[in-house]
């Protein structure tokens, strides 16, 4: 049902075929469109993951200078997740016996520099003690995370593979601003990078359970082996032997026949022997012919007769090409609407019947359906043939809005032109139906 709502074309097809014209039943309609149903189902099943945006409260300025802040509980949760210090501050300061109220807390949060540090825009901020403290504490947290990973050991463990003699030239790809403060971890950019890394880790952890498991494993391993695993860093892939691929070879029995695009004439396959001369003779002949040959290009090369014929032929080719090009695009401006509707309808019907016919073509349990389709195809064919006889007056009588039709009446010539055009449009469909019918007859 939802599929029909979403896709206009499909719903129109459905309406026309199943409801109005009653040519196929609902089940049959959907039988052939299984893949659409399947795709739709899959789309509905997928759940959206956690948003990866760093939670940020943006005030919306409305008319009149008021700024509105939308704080949803979801947003609050995200902020607490991202910045645990804010959560602690919240718990400490907001509550029944505590100084700040819920709204006030968030108001101060938005106005404080904490919120705005995530954005580079530095205007309209108020220095807020509470959140300044939060900020500094968050920074400390990030910088100390590395150390905490080694279970609180004071001395940071450095990997044995790290190059101690690396200078600036070894890191030319990454250009960071020079750190003048010379205090570890307090550079602006480093802390920005660390913050982003932490955020990214959190998002990935939330979405996959694998990282959690591997992290726990890694922790276990760390406790057991103090040595680092050097193998991945030392092995050079190019020096390893290539493993044989597990591919299934496509076996073609006869390569020549497979690759030939057309049937070769009899006896032309391998040797091309002239009745009179053998190839080596011809080759020798050419060799002797061409030795010391200096063609005289100053004498007339092409006789008058041939030149004329050639030009004539070229002109003919150009003429036919132009003719086709001109005739190809029909003029559809004044196409009368009843004919158009009929063509459209027949097209839909015909294609649907053909689909069902071919779908039940070779299967054993659908012979009944196949026969039914044949009947319907015949019906469609007769209907196509009837288009010739559509006349304007009939249509005017049939429809109840005869007054409106008088505006859209076209003269007889245009009507007949439109009918021929409609027949041309339906020609491929008619050919396909006829092919199907002949196959059906021969099959039975």
């Amino acid at each position, binding site marked *: 049902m939802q599929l029909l709502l979403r896709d206009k074309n499909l719903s129109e097809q459905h309406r026309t075929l199943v409801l109005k014209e009653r040519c196929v039943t609902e089940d049959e309609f959907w039988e052939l469109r299984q893949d659409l149903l399947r795709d739709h189902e899959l789309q509905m099943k997928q759940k959206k993951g956690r948003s990866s945006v760093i939670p940020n409260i943006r005030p919306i300025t409305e008319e009149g200078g008021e700024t509105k802040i939308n704080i949803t509980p979801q947003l609050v949760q995200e902020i607490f997740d991202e910045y645990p210090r804010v959560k602690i501050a919240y718990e400490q300061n907001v509550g029944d016996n505590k100084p700040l109220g819920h709204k006030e807390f968030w108001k101060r949060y938005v106005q404080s520099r904490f919120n705005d540090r995530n954005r580079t825009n530095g205007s309209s901020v108020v220095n807020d003690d509470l959140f300044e403290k939060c900020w500094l504490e968050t920074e400390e947290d990030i910088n100390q995370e590395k150390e905490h990973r080694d279970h609180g050991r004071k001395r940071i463990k450095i990997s044995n593979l790290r190059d101690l003699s690396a200078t600036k030239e070894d890191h030319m790809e990454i250009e960071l601003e020079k750190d003048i403060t010379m205090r570890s971890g307090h550079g602006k950019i480093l802390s920005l990078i660390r913050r982003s890394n932490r955020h990214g880790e959190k998002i990935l952890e939330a979405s996959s359970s694998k990282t959690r498991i591997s992290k726990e494993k890694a922790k276990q391993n760390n406790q057991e082996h103090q040595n680092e695993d050097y193998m991945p860093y030392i092995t050079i892939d190019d020096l390893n032997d290539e493993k044989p691929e597990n591919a*299934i070879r*496509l*076996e*073609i*029995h*006869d390569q*020549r*026949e*497979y*690759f*030939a*695009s*057309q*049937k*070769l*004439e009899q006896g*032309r396959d*391998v*040797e*091309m022997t*002239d009745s009179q*001369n053998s*190839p*080596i003779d*011809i*080759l*020798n002949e*050419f*060799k002797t*012919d*061409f*030795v*010391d*040959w*200096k*063609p005289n*290009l100053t004498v007339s*090369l*092409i*006789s008058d007769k*041939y*030149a004329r*014929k*050639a*030009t004539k*032929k*070229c*002109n*003919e*080719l*150009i003429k036919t*090409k132009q003719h086709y090009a001109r005739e190809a695009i029909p003029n559809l401006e004044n196409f009368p609407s009843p004919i158009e509707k009929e063509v459209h309808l027949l097209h839909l019907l015909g294609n649907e019947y053909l689909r069902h016919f*071919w779908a039940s*073509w*070779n299967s054993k349990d659908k012979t009944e359906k196949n026969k039914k389709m044949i009947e319907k195809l015949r019906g469609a064919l007769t209907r196509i043939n009837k288009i010739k006889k559509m006349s304007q007056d009939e249509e005017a009588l049939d429809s109840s809005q005869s007054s409106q039709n008088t505006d859209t009446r076209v003269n007889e010539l245009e009507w007949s032109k439109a009918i021929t055009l409609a027949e041309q449009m339906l020609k*491929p469909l008619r*050919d*396909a139906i006829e*092919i199907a019918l002949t*196959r059906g007859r021969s099959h039975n």
Partner: protein
Amino acid sequence: MKVDEDANLLVLIIDTNPIVWRKSNFSLKEALRHILVFINAHLALKHDNDVAIIASHVGVSKFLYPIPMTHENSDKTIFPNMYQKFRVIDEKVIANMSALFEDVDTPNNYPDKASSMMAGALSMALCYINRITKADEIGHVKSRILIISVSPDSPYQYISIMNCIFSAQKLCIPIDVCKVYGSDTPVFLQQASHITGGKYLKLEMPQGLLQFLMIAFLPDRYNKKYLCLPGEERVDFGAACFCHKKIIDVGYVCSVCLSSILNLICDLFSVYQNVMILFLNHL
């Protein structure tokens, strides 16, 4: 980019299969005279125009021009009445052509004497064009390929020719085909010209070769847009069954190798699954 600054590179691939040329009533020498005049005309259109000529022989394909000459043995007399460039090219082409025919043994030992090494010639042409385009810093060289063919397609070269056609399509190099003599339609070359935006022309009258060349194949890439040139538009795209080579309208497609077959009993394949599709005849 002004059009006046365009330099046009025409790469000419001449099919020199002696056996097929012998069969046709038109001799290769006559054809070469026509072709040389055509080349001169192309060079005369613009000072910067350049040409490269490749001969596609039985089992080999060789450059006829330009070849760096290792030793100068052509006489250095300057003909005052002839444009030097014409003369140089004409001489070199003929000299290299006779050198090509000198070697009788290699073509003789080649099993499939009915066709010529079109795939090799096409690849050489594309490589040459690529080199020239890369070497040309200003980006003014516009290249195209013209194939003068007499021999039928070789089924062995199907994949190679198709690969060349697709790379020419990617590089926007039109491939024109002039079929001087040939009994059956060369499907590969027709498709080549169709995909790359070139023209395919089959001559009923080889004696009018020069006239056809001048009318249909002389205008370069820029001028082609404004001229209506003769060429056969209908390309035979009909799918053929891979084992019988009959044109089919309903058949099966193997989902592994994408080859179409008439029915499942064709014994050419050892592994297949069947998907049925309908082929509509392109009219």
